[in-house]
């Protein structure tokens, strides 16, 4: 191997399709491969495979361990949303141990998790996905669009300070862009907010079953609130900035709504508990689930199927089909019935056995370490996605119309976010309205709006927490005993969407533990019924708007489609686009030749 430059030019195979792969994909978390077959004549992606190439085996090595270790261990599943796992695990443990933390402990967790949303969405939106929309990227992929952007005045220039859309794009250029650098700083003080409540980022130190070890004081809340108000002021610029940028793409590239578009099949497991109602019992889960500050829900074709957490729980199925695991059919069932007496399916996470079976990657057979979680609605195994999290959360919350804290109100068709006056900006209201499509741009737009949502909610939590401190109720942790036999489940919304933890305790030890983060849903692969996973599905529908010929093709529209889901592979994936049967081997880009045969 002495070749230093690309020696091959992508050639279409006999079927007119060109295999191309992106593996590993950068500017996401973890190792994801997307392998595609592209029809350059029709300017469409014909086929897509998503593949994840890393297996660690949490469910395997957690067996037999002390259940109280679970949140410390599962946090390490992910380096950007580990605290979501720790939180979810603590919820599952609270249920299993029958402990209800003091209200203040719950407000502190809510403040920590809100800061996680604020941090994570910000850094991802501006420093990872934002690069797909920066001046340099647009210049290299759609010079015509950049020319138009130079001539297009930004409608909200008064709010964010950038005169033209091209100015917005320039500000997003890596390192050189002023807004890019500012966002990095914002990602830091939001993490400081997080650390105030949960000790350290991303693996929390002060989270425990029964509450938190955080010492609640006036100082704690003042330190948080001062930073929060800076963020609130920041969002008053960022929401209009992204509205301008994303609206421009619809205008500049008619038909861009098709990029990353798929059927509306959204899941949201709810997040941010209300301690007034949440007692962590399974029996009351449907009720306290509906009292969450982000309402759980399954949304199909724009309609709310359910917002009942118990129903959501019982509908979860883990399918195999294209993943490197032995099936567990016929193995022992851990939980035949839930605590309410409802039958639990053998393919439910409570009953899952993880039996790894490493093997060669074969895009016609097994090709990923990710499994295929589906939601069974009684008829179909739906390949739900989370759209990266925010779009599903806002959609589900908007439709249910249950949330109303003053700062945030769900209307049935929208979510209204009221941000109070800040140092240099007046009171501002943003309204996220249910969009027409579940596509790349709307996933991105929702991410920005959810940042404002999280900030507004945090104001509410800070007020409630401070109320407790001022009243002298500073206890944040409650004692518990670990029972010999118990089951527990935790539901929350990780940054990227649905997160569940299912635990079974036997003889005081972990007998079974299966975490299901959002990325296994989004990055899942073709299941036993042949249904592709959401990335695969969304990319397969993606038209190509890029102006580059195949030789210089970057696949920016594909990357925008994939990144709109905010992939997080430690939590679950690897994608692959390609899988040609007829591609000429000599002309296949690296990485695909072996798959062509």
């Amino acid at each position, binding site marked *: 191997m002495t070749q230093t430059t690309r020696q091959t030019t992508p050639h279409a195979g006999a079927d007119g399709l060109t295999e191309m792969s992106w593996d590993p994909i950068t500017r996401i978390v*973890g190792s994801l491969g997307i392998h595609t077959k592209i029809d350059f004549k029709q300017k469409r992606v014909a086929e897509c495979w998503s593949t994840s190439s890393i297996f660690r085996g949490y469910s395997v090595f957690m067996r037999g361990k002390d259940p109280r270790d679970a949140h410390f261990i599962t946090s390490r599943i992910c380096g950007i949303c580990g605290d979501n796992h720790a939180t979810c695990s603590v919820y599952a443990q609270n249920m299993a141990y029958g402990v209800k933390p003091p209200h203040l402990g719950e407000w502190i967790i809510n403040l920590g998790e809100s800061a996680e949303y604020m941090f994570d969405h910000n850094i991802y939106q501006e420093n990872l996905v934002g690069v797909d929309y920066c001046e340099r990227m647009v210049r290299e992929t759609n010079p015509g669009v950049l020319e138009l952007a130079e001539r297009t005045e930004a409608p909200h220039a008064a709010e964010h300070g950038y005169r033209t859309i091209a100015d917005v794009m320039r500000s997003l250029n890596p390192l050189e862009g002023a807004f890019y650098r500012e966002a990095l700083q914002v990602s830091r003080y939001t993490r400081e907010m997080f650390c105030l409540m949960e000790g350290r980022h991303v693996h929390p130190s002060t989270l425990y079953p029964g509450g938190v070890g*955080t010492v609640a004081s006036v100082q704690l809340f003042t330190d948080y609130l001062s930073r929060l108000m800076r963020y609130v002021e920041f969002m008053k610029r960022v929401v209009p900035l992204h509205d301008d940028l994303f609206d421009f793409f619809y205008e500049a590239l008619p038909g861009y709504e098709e990029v990353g578009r798929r059927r509306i099949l959204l899941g949201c497991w709810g997040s941010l508990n209300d301690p007034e109602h949440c007692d962590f019992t399974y029996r009351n889960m449907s009720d306290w689930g509906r009292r969450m500050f982000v309402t759980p829900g399954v949304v199909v074709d724009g309609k709310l199927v359910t917002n009942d957490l118990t129903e959501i729980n019982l509908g979860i199925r883990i399918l195999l089909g294209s993943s490197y695991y032995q099936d567990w059919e016929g193995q022992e069932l851990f939980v035949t019935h839930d605590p309410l007496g409802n039958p639990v399916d053998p393919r439910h996470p409570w009953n899952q056995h993880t039996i790894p079976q490493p093997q060669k990657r074969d895009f016609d057979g097994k090709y990923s370490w990710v499994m295929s979680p589906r939601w069974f609605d009684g008829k179909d195994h739906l390949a739900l996605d989370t759209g990266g999290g925010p779009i599903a959360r806002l959609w589900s919350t908007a439709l249910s119309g249950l949330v109303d804290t003053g700062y945030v109100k769900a209307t049935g068709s929208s979510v209204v976010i009221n941000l109070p006056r800040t140092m240099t900006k007046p009171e501002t209201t943003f309204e996220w309205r249910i969009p027409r499509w579940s596509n790349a741009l709307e996933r991105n737009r929702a991410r920005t709006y959810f940042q404002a949502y999280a900030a507004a909610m945090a104001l509410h939590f800070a007020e409630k927490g401070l109320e407790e401190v001022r009243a002298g109720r500073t206890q944040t942790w409650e004692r518990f005993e670990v029972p010999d036999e118990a089951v527990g489940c935790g539901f929350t919304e990780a940054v990227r969407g649905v997160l569940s933890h299912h635990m079974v305790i036997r003889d005081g030890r972990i007998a079974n533990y299966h975490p299901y983060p959002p990325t296994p849903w989004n990055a899942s692969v073709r299941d036993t019924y042949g249904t592709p996973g959401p990335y695969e599905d969304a990319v397969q529908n993606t038209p190509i708007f890029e102006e580059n010929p195949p030789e210089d093709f970057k696949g920016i529209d594909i990357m925008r489609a994939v990144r709109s889901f905010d992939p997080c592979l430690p939590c679950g994936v690897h994608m692959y686009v390609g899988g040609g049967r007829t591609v000429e081997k000599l002309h296949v880009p690296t990485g*695909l030749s072996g798959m062509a045969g």
Partner: protein
Amino acid sequence: MDAAPSTPPAPAPAASGEEAPIHILWMNAGLSCDGDSVSLTAATQPSIEEIALRALPGLPPVAVHWPLIDFESGPVGGADTFIEWFFKAERGEIDPFVLVVEGSIPNEEIKSEGYWSGFGDDPETGQPITSSAWLDRLAPRALAVVAIGTCATYGGIHAMEGNPTGAMGVPDHLGWNWRSRAGIPIVCVPGCPVQPDNFAETLTYLLYQAAGSAPMIPLDDKLRPTWLFGATVHEGCDRGSYYEQGQFADAYDSPTCLVKLGCWGPVVKCNVPKRGWMDGIGGCPNVGGICIACTMPGFPDKFMPFMDEPPGAKVSSALSGAYGAAVRRLRGITLDTVDKEPRWRRTGHRLTTGYRPPW
């Protein structure tokens, strides 16, 4: 030990006439969670943009190939493919480079086929190239190999008892006495995740060393930078004084010493309580989070169950319980005295400070 060459062998200078950069190749495809990558973006002393834009005096130019924020993203074999830099390094076309490894290295020899962890595809076979294969290919050419996080350094959480992958740290894989061609041992910066500034500082040190302005990086026998990992958690913990006074928490929300509730701080090498998590904020036992020893080679198995009292703490905490109670009483008396102002601070016609007025 020898210092790194002050003028590392470099390819022809770039066309612009600028100094050739030191490449940093970041491999996040060990068994990892990318938490160390994410953590580094929190660093401010210095920050990643300050390193990249050479805000500190004397820093050499760097070209960072880091999956988390890299501009380049393919496609494979296309115009700007991220993974191509790794192939270039293997072919000796970029020099010098520092290899950063994140995540533990699985044992790929314990199974008949497939991979536990892959990073990019082999153009010949179309199958993923394993992380351990990359390590074997690139380590001999690297100026230095840096293991970031407890997984890459010592195996960490993914090397827990009962794990299916046989995971281990980079020194376990390459050998603890391994030296780079520049004579630099594997540099281990443990932590789960790595404390942001700890890594930014180590990287900065290595860049200064590569530029010829710093001597060989001082490492201890577990290959940790000595100035960061020389002291224990307890030695830097602001709750250590509660320990001395025999005041031990029996609930996690108590502000006193957490040792009876699972804190391993007295025997763990880590600077977090002293340094804070970021910009002095946050931490572990100093803010109510038991130390689970996430920087240590014995992590996690030697510290579980985390929420139980470390066996060794029982004796010492009993001793300090007795001694500390007496100390605390005496201090209470003194405190009572010094908590009152001297009596001459008062209103009235007479000055009682001891000064003799001339009027």
